[in-house]
């Protein structure tokens, strides 16, 4: 069972690589869990394929979604990937919490190696395949609409980024069914992940999945930055952009500079593992500290890559649901830029204990504390925005409020960790785990979910169910506090992170509490699914085709919901920030344009799916040493790029008459709709037209 099967073709595959075979030979709970996880992937994969075939949706899927270059559809696909991956990583988190709660004074039911795989996949997925695709999807969808553009600057590149991300996510899923994942944590530190200590496929899965994700993010960063710099509609000066666009710009710039160090780090590690190099090995001149340095040069800006868009989201949400202009717009922009720059000055605080001199640690510790200042500025901005506003406690607003309270707590423990001497004490304990979850869950996840609830009506044309939204929101909040506050206590009492079994019985009540919290977080996700289901069922009653259900400010609210393929029948001309908000109060924003023109849009292209599938196959081949597959995949990628450059007929015309027909039918609906006041905006009376009191 441990001999390679047909190595010419299947590389280092053995029957033992399949979790089902392992479970058959050795039916322990541990192996059965692995087999069940693999089984879920296989069964749900087959179920999806069967469903598409039965519904005869293949052609529709291919032409409407998979080959589309529409930034809106690409954005939605990103978020679909993110939600699927969120489900998996959340289940893994629950397994880990359950294991630790059970394994006080006994080995528990998850074996150490398996436990290590769980925390490695949980971290890698949550960062690279949940947070990143989710925020990239939101940016993709919203930024062109907010700046009055028809698409991003490089639509084909955009689709390729999506497909590389999808390939990386598919690799993560494949590791559940064939072989094992890395046991080296989400940061994959060598020398542990070197060939000498980890000869298996696990680290290779990690290397290639992360490499695909980082390449995709680099290209996305370039795309978004160029879009914001070059594609703004007439009159949209930088200081008139909505704050979400500003934070997207800063995130994009961070991606451009922060992702390459990661790509370099994983590429060098791959050279070590595949070609016998010695960049990070113990012997022959290798030095793993270079890896730590490179990884965190990416890793710290990454923290702000995932948090800055959420800051933008909260700014939009707080301002909209307080019916007030954002307090201190300029200071928020400056604070965002300051955070973007400062984020490149603090990476050493992730390895205070690596052994550099005290003065260097002190310098980076001070820089770390300095980041708290612009972040604090933002918190005050949001509080002042709400002050004397017409605050409505809708779901996104509850997320925003929970964020403000919780994020400040997490920031406080961050300041504690920024003192090198204190960091030495809690280094590698659950205190750290509690701290970064305390930043990332309110700072990123709540923001993403607030955005999901806030912009869902814009994207799909109907509002999400408010009641289930609040239930889910409440579960995310209560679950978070129950799951992570105990970890502060445990960490301060010395419990190391990534511990598979616990010998100290005094930890037991705290671990139980954390497990209860993890279960509530799982319920929160379930409530999210129920909310989606209920909302789809009642979509007729919650229809907001007119497109402005919350009395929004930025340009995306000035078009129908869902927006037409070309976004704007006529590109807007703006003469101030919040142009749409003021237009609703001063003149008629829904008046038809003087004339309609032909609009040129991009034709679909199969190049991105081809590249995505080929790169998934090539990296899978590299993981399993199926060299023929790797070479074949690389050739296909190259050929696809060359072939694309010969395609001359890339555009198609939407004639002016068609534009007029689509636009006029929306304007008629606008004229028919009943404007609603803010008090009843969550009731079915809301048809997407805001009642304006000037």
């Amino acid at each position, binding site marked *: 069972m441990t001999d390679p099967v047909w190595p010419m073709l299947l590389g280092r595959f053995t029957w033992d690589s399949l979790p089902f075979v392992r479970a058959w030979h050795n039916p322990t709970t541990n192996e059965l869990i692995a087999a069940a996880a693999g089984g879920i992937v296989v069964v749900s994969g087959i179920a999806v394929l069967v469903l598409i075939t039965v519904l005869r949706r293949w052609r529709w899927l291919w032409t409407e979604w998979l080959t589309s270059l529409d930034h809106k559809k690409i954005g939605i696909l990103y978020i679909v990937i993110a939600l699927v991956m969120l489900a998996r990583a959340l289940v893994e988190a629950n397994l880990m919490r359950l294991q630790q709660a059970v394994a006080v004074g006994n080995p528990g039911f998850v074996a150490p190696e398996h436990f290590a795989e769980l925390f490695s996949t949980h971290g890698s997925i949550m960062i690279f395949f949940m947070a990143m695709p989710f925020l990239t999807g939101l940016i993709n969808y919203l930024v062109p609409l907010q700046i009055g553009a028809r698409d991003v600057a490089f639509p084909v590149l955009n689709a390729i980024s999506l497909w590389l991300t999808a390939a990386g996510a598919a690799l993560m899923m494949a590791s559940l069914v064939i072989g094992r994942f890395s046991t080296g944590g989400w940061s994959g530190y060598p020398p542990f992940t070197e060939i000498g200590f980890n000869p298996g496929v696990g680290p290779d899965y990690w290397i290639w999945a992360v490499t695909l994700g980082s390449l995709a993010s680099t290209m996305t960063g370039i795309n978004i930055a160029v879009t914001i*710099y070059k594609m703004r509609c007439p009159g949209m000066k930088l200081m008139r952009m909505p704050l979400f666009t500003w934070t997207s710009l800063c995130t994009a*710039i961070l991606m451009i*500079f922060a992702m390459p*160090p990661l790509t370099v780090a994983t590429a060098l590690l791959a050279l070590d593992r595949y070609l016998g190099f010695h960049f990070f090995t113990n012997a022959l001149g290798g030095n793993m*500290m*270079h890896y730590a*340095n490179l990884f965190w*040069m990416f890793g710290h800006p990454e923290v702000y890559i995932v948090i800055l868009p959420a800051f933008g989201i909260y700014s939009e949400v707080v301002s909209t649901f307080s019916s007030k202009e954002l307090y201190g717009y300029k200071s928020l922009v400056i604070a965002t830029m300051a955070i973007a*720059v400062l984020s*490149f*000055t603090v*990476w*050493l605080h992730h390895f205070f204990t*690596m*052994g*550099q*001199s005290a003065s*260097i640690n002190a310098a980076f510790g001070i820089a770390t504390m300095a980041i708290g200042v612009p972040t604090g500025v933002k918190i005050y901005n949001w509080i002042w925005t709400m002050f004397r506003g017409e605050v409505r406690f809708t779901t996104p607003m509850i997320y925003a409020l929970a964020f403000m309270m919780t994020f400040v707590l997490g920031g406080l423990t961050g300041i504690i960790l920024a003192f090198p001497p204190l960091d030495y004490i809690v280094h590698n304990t659950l205190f750290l785990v509690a701290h970064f979850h305390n930043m990332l869950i309110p700072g990123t996840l709540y923001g993403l979910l607030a955005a999901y609830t806030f912009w869902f009506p814009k994207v799909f044309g109907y509002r999400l169910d408010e009641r289930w939204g609040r239930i889910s929101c409440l579960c995310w909040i209560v679950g978070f506090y129950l799951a992570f506050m105990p970890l502060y206590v445990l960490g301060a009492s010395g419990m190391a992170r990534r511990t598979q079994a616990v010998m100290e019985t005094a930890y037991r009540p705290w671990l139980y509490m954390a497990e209860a919290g993890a279960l509530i977080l799982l319920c929160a996700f379930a409530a999210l699914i129920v909310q989606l289901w209920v909302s789809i069922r009642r979509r007729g009653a919650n229809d907001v085709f007119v497109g402005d259900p919350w009395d929004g400010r930025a340009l995306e609210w000035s078009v129908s919901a869902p927006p037409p393929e070309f976004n704007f029948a006529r590109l807007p001309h703006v003469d101030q920030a919040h142009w749409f908000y003021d237009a609703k109060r001063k003149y008629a924003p829904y008046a038809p344009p003087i004339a309609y023109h032909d609009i040129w849009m991009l034709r679909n292209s199969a190049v991105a799916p081809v590249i995505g599938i080929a790169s998934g196959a090539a990296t899978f081949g590299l993981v399993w040493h199926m060299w023929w597959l790797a070479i074949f995949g690389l050739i296909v990628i190259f050929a696809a790029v060359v072939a694309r450059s010969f395609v001359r007929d890339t555009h198609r015309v939407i004639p002016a008459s068609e534009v007029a027909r689509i636009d006029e039918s929306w304007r008629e609906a606008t004229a028919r709709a009943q404007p609603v006041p803010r008090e009843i905006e969550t009731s079915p009376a809301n048809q997407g037209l805001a009642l304006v009191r000037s």
Partner: protein
Amino acid sequence: MNGNDERRAEVRSYLVGYAGAIVMTGVAFAIVQWPIASPKLTFAAVLTLAFTQIVLQFRCFLHISLRRSARDDLQLILFSTLVVALMVGGTLVILLNLRERMM
């Protein structure tokens, strides 16, 4: 200025940049092949030539100038320089310090 003049000015800018780049690269190679100064001075000269060439290429090929229309691009370049300096400089400080403490 009509389109033709504009085009001519653009071509001239490319030619100037091209010639300048070739001369500076050639000089850098030449002073290494046929040394006329101490190695330290030669190294400084090569660095200076390289830096001048970067500026020249930005000016002539990428049309970066202090004019208002190019202000965005200039800001991005300065920002990039700052971030790269932080990353490279920080890395050097950290790793040289580690080396010092371990050797």
